[in-house]
């Protein structure tokens, strides 16, 4: 089973991610973001970071999580090679990540931000699915 697929949009792109758990969907969504943003997936982790988020619902939590990854990527040149996500509840998550300092040449496009456009998180069969469109 695929972890994610890229969705087309007139000017931008989206990601549809699947996972057995909500945490896996978030991790796979991050992979989808890097598939849009980078020529090559990050591999050589050098820095560990812990991230925590609170929100009113899982959708807001997903947007906050992706906003943080976009910020880290374009401001600190950091992309996660591995993320371990745990939920205290559906509105509170912690992410422990191994991050690579990526070279500017590896940046393929500039992602401005994840958007709420057609944002979706849903249970599917025995797992979860989420869709996010990114403004490029």
């Amino acid at each position, binding site marked *: 089973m695929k972890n994610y697929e890229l969705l087309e949009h007139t000017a*931008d792109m989206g990601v549809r991610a699947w996972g057995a758990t909500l945490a896996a969907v978030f991790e796979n969504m991050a992979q989808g973001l890097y598939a849009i943003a980078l020529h090559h997936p990050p591999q050589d982790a050098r820095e560990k970071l812990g991230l925590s988020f609170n929100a009113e619902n899982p959708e807001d939590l997903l947007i906050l999580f992706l906003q943080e990854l976009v910020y880290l990527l374009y*401001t600190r*040149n950091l992309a996660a090679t591995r993320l371990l996500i745990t939920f205290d509840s559906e509105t509170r998550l912690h992410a422990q990540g191994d991050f690579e300092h990526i070279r*500017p040449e590896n940046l393929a*496009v500039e992602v401005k931000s994840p958007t709420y456009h057609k*944002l979706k998180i849903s249970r599917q069969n025995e797992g979860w699915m989420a869709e996010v469109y990114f403004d490029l």
Partner: protein
Amino acid sequence: MTPPESELLEQISPYKWRIPKERHPKMRVDGIIYASPALMEDIFRDQALNQVINVAQLPGIIRASLAMPDIHWGYGFPIGGVAAFDMQDGIVSPGGVGYDINCGVRLLRSQLLEKDIAGRLRDLIQVFYHNVPAGVGREGRLRLKASQLLSVLEQGSHWAIKQGYGWQEDLERTEDQGRLRNADSSLISPRAIERGLNQLGTLGSGNHFLELQVVDKIYDSQAAAVLGLFEGQVTLMIHCGSRGLGYQVCEDSLGVLRRSAAKYCLDLPDRQLACAPIQSPEGQNYLNSMAAAANYAWANRQCIMHWVRESFEQVFRQSAEKLGLHLVYDVAHNIAKIETMPEHKGRRTVCVHRKGATRSFPAGHPEVCEPYRAIGQPVLIPGSMGTASYVCLGTEQALQESFGSTAHGAGRVLSRHAALRRTRGRSISQELADQGIYVMARGRGTLAEEAPEAYKPIDEVVETVHQAGLSKKVARLRPVGVVKG
């Protein structure tokens, strides 16, 4: 439930279509779309008309939810969307401006003729490429402290001129003189400052560009003379915006305004249309932080233009003054502003959102700078890579019908992946070279993603706004060299 789009529309003139407000129970005003029948076919394929309907549902919207012929699917508002809101009952929304606050275009003219650059085209483009940082992840040449960036946010182009990046005359030839006075830098988050700190004076990527052009057709010789344009003349166009700082201001504001929608009991059809009453603290804070990002964008284009002038000097070994490198005009095409509009026999102050739309004020309007007040505000409409761009003028009809607004560009029709598929196996740079256009791009996939066929035909877009009376053609500019991010 929205009915199928073809059933929504009534054609009310050759270039104007209406979605009557009766077609949707929550629409407060009609939707009006300016498009030729051919462009309408592209518009149907997209879901942008639903976004015109969504905008028509926002509180305090005045007269109509408008769409320009380059409309395509955006976030919240469509790209190419225009809406004005009542100052007492209306809202302001970052979804009506977009992430790239004050993305815009400026045009520089010269005394050079096409024959003067014939043997130097490659040199010029290579020098631009070297002198103007472009491409994703590319840092700028300026090394600013956060405190200096706050001055940029407050002063816009004025900051750049004070630092020596340009001429005093550039200011009056820039929309709002390159500075929105309501900017409040104290509202800008540390994260936005961090994102913007090393990007001032950078072009960015995607559809942003520097383009060397030749004036190849004049439609209005009197107006062209006032603008200093003539056939065969070399011009240079710059298209870029507020970079990461603007994206972060939009993101920060959406977070605040999403909560304020509940606080003010606003029933919104799309979460990306998060908004607040204009007079509320949240609404005012958005307008004032957006203004700060808009000022950053003007300073950005001003610095880039300075390095373009230096690049000409380097190649031609003459001063920019001697080469006649004067700014024709600079327009914002992603912005929300408080403006005064004619209404019945009086006037009304409103908050106009232009998202992928250009201000188009007529001759005599007090907001049009003195050198152009007799002819109207210059409107710059860039084409896609390899196609023409246009210089037009604002009209009285635009002021009366579209809150003084017109189109902003070609408007995308193909997704990036579709463009990559369509151009697989082709060399876009060679195809452009065959048309006499020398192009340099930093990104590997940029040229294919930005291939001319990924966009609507610019001639059709400009003809539509010309025939609809929203702006009048003055000159067509043919590209001869392009720098892309």
